[in-house]
């Protein structure tokens, strides 16, 4: 596809019909040059453009999966992680405030904190977040580290309804089940393994290292995990704890670019995302965190939100200057499968820009090329 064809496609996105039958949903884009701007107002406008939060969250428990990947001790150029590879705490606070204002009964922030089963509050403090401010942002705010059992007494099993790719089901922290609404709050980033990491790839972080980590127990979960998930999930060099379902086909590819994207598609099929919010105000290009060689800071100055994660990620991918339907081998999926297409095949949503209505700022106006 030529550049001219590409621009024509994204400009005509809301007008064209066609593509696969997976559902679509509108996606809102807003310009936001800095976290010092009124991010609450920006988000409020976007939520209104999506039909309003009230009907989605009133009197309900809302669980928000944050993207806080990698140890909070690791920084890019010494900068706070919120302006590089974590979602920014101001945006998180703004979302909590708006959810509370819309009547959410309980707002539970969750993340599988890297290499620890300790309280998420400690992890946030180590990230330089003001936990007290976040608690005060709305009534009923609470936190859960989903890297292990946490405050629950058993893991929740999420079955992949049909034609699972790698696992028939995944055992996750109770927080992902004990909720009425599930929100994925991600960062607009490249990813060394998956090309891009957006609202769907953020959900890879739901997997508890207690079961899927490199030091997970062989038979039962290790409730004091101290490692990531590379051996088990990225590379398939060992199986998860036997308490959880094992791989459908242990002879399948061990290539991370195959495995992670398929696992993510399975996860978002089994634990649907009701609202996707992507922080592209300030971010990283070239990789997902400081441990990736060649990453650099970028300032796209954009926010993306939508009610369907595939469509939201497709729009966000286009904002990054990529074709969201690009096949393996084409940027940004040079060495991996396209998670959006895998999720689309699962019926989660459409990645076809022609079937997605973009509200607010257009893709062309918001575009910030990562490549």
């Amino acid at each position: 596809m030529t550049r001219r064809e590409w621009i024509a496609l994204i400009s005509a996105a809301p007008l064209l019909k066609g593509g696969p039958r997976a559902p679509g949903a509108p996606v809102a884009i807003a310009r936001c040059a800095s976290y010092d701007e009124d991010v609450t107002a920006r988000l409020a406008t976007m939520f209104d453009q999506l039909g309003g939060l009230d009907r989605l969250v009133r009197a309900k428990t809302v669980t928000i999966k944050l993207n806080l990947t990698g140890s909070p001790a690791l920084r890019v150029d010494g900068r706070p992680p919120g302006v590089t590879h974590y979602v920014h705490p101001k945006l998180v606070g703004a979302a909590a405030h708006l959810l509370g204002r819309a009547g959410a009964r309980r707002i539970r922030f969750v993340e599988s904190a890297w290499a620890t089963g300790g309280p998420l509050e400690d992890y946030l403090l180590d990230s330089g977040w003001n936990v007290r401010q976040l608690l005060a942002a709305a009534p009923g705010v609470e936190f859960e580290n989903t890297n292990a059992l946490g405050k629950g007494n058993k893991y929740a099993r999420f079955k992949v309804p049909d034609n699972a790719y790698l696992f028939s089901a995944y055992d996750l922290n109770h927080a992902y089940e004990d909720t009425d609404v599930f929100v994925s709050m991600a960062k607009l980033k490249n990813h060394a393994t998956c090309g891009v990491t957006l609202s769907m790839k953020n959900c890879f972080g739901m997997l508890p290292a207690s079961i899927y980590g490199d030091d997970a127990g062989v038979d039962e979960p290790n409730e004091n995990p101290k490692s990531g998930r590379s051996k088990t999930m990225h590379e398939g060099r060992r199986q998860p704890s036997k308490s959880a379902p094992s791989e459908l086909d242990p002879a399948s590819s061990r290539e991370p670019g195959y495995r992670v994207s398929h696992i993510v598609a399975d996860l978002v099929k089994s634990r649907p995302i009701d609202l996707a919010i992507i922080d592209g105000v300030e971010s990283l290009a070239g990789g997902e965190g400081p441990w990736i060689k060649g990453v650099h800071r970028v300032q796209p100055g954009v926010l993306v939100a939508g009610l369907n994660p595939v469509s939201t990620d497709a729009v966000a991918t286009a904002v990054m200057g990529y074709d969201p339907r690009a096949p393996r081998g084409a940027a940004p999926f040079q060495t991996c499968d396209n998670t959006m297409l895998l999720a689309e095949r699962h019926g989660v949503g459409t990645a076809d820009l022609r079937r997605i209505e973009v509200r607010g700022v257009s893709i062309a106006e918001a575009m910030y090329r990562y490549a």
Partner: protein
Amino acid sequence: MMHRMAGCLPLLTAIPLLASVPPSAWVPARWDGTNPKTLDLLSGTPINCLLLNTYTAEFIDRASARGVAVLAVLRPGGDPSDAARKAIHAGLQGIVLEGDFPRGAATRVRDALADAHATVVELTSRARMPLGDPDPIVATYQGVWPGIQVLDNGAAKAAPSGSPWIDTNTGFIRSVRAWGPAAVWLGYQPPANSVITIERYLAAISDAEMAGARWIVALDGDLSARLQRGDADAVKVWRAMAQVLQFFETHPEWRTLRSYGKLAVVQDKDDAMLSGGILDMIAAKHTPLRAIPGQRLTADSLAGASMAVNVDADALTVEQREILKSFARAGGTVLTAPPGWKGQSALAPDQITLDKAELDRLNDIWHDVQTMTGRKNLGARLFNVASMLSNVLATEDRGQVVVELVNYSAYPIENVTVQVVGTFRHARLITPGGAEKDLEVYTTDEGGTGVDIERVSACATVRLD
């Protein structure tokens, strides 16, 4: 004897001008050249003691007139006594014996200068430091250059899941200070053939001062030359160094405080003299600790502690083992290294860090230490401090707690949280440049006292009352 006394008479007249500042309060710097005009650089700095390789009468006079002590640096090679006598006769206030002199040399120099009451500082290898001696100053020329270890590709040395490793002398300093009240000087010099940023100089000063020692200020050749030419950038670096020095030196009371940590680490002297060992590993986790040399283990030294790590069990006497047993019987937790475990066997003169084999052996007990300490608040818990080290101190009655923070990165750190055991009503943030401000105090989930600090540049201190 008469001859000796006669020889010393001129010395006696040369000494007393600076008697008002005791050697233990000297703030030292190495000084290049003898141009008296360079002394103007000392204006506005707390530096009051210069170490000279060469000297002139005019320089000594001008320095003395400013209340600055000047010390002659002598190095091994021949009998230093004559050179020492000559220096004191010329009006210098003391001698620095830098290097490992033959045994007895320092004693001979002291004898030669006995009637002059001149100060003799032994700037030795760590292995030969006269710990526990009555000298006002104990010093070493060895030290690690403080800062975050950087790999060849420019990245901070750390595992993907880990914190950046900070090279520090603080564990070593804590161990040395546990031997007695002498002022501790670190005379290591900036690494050669390196571009040294302002942050690294500030870290060198703060690393020593935070632990209660003093780095003998030393500039790399390029900076020194530019400073003497009056180069604006060099002056800016110098002023920043002076400001951080002033920050610590205007609070001498911090040196007198005791560790607020409930964790005691009992360690043999040879292990404690190395950097990068168990003390630095625990400090990197910001667990406040007190260092206790095995040879100085007493019941009093464990007062207020709730946990003890006994690194070299075999090195303790029967009586000392009984002290640890009593500590455990009184409710304390004691972690003892595995049977037969032994740390550093003999300290080589040129060794100041653990080698890989020693580090591997240390992992035997490091895992257990981490399990034992866990998330427990053993005096204070600090957050968002991966590029920092800290020291948590208290007055004797524990009514005032001081948390010193040093940032080893090239960037200010925003939003640091400190949670201290105990109830405190007031917190004050003190930073270089004389700025002070009150911090909001809140009660933590554990019932302790919490404060949030908006920003820490090179260093900062929180005082809680």
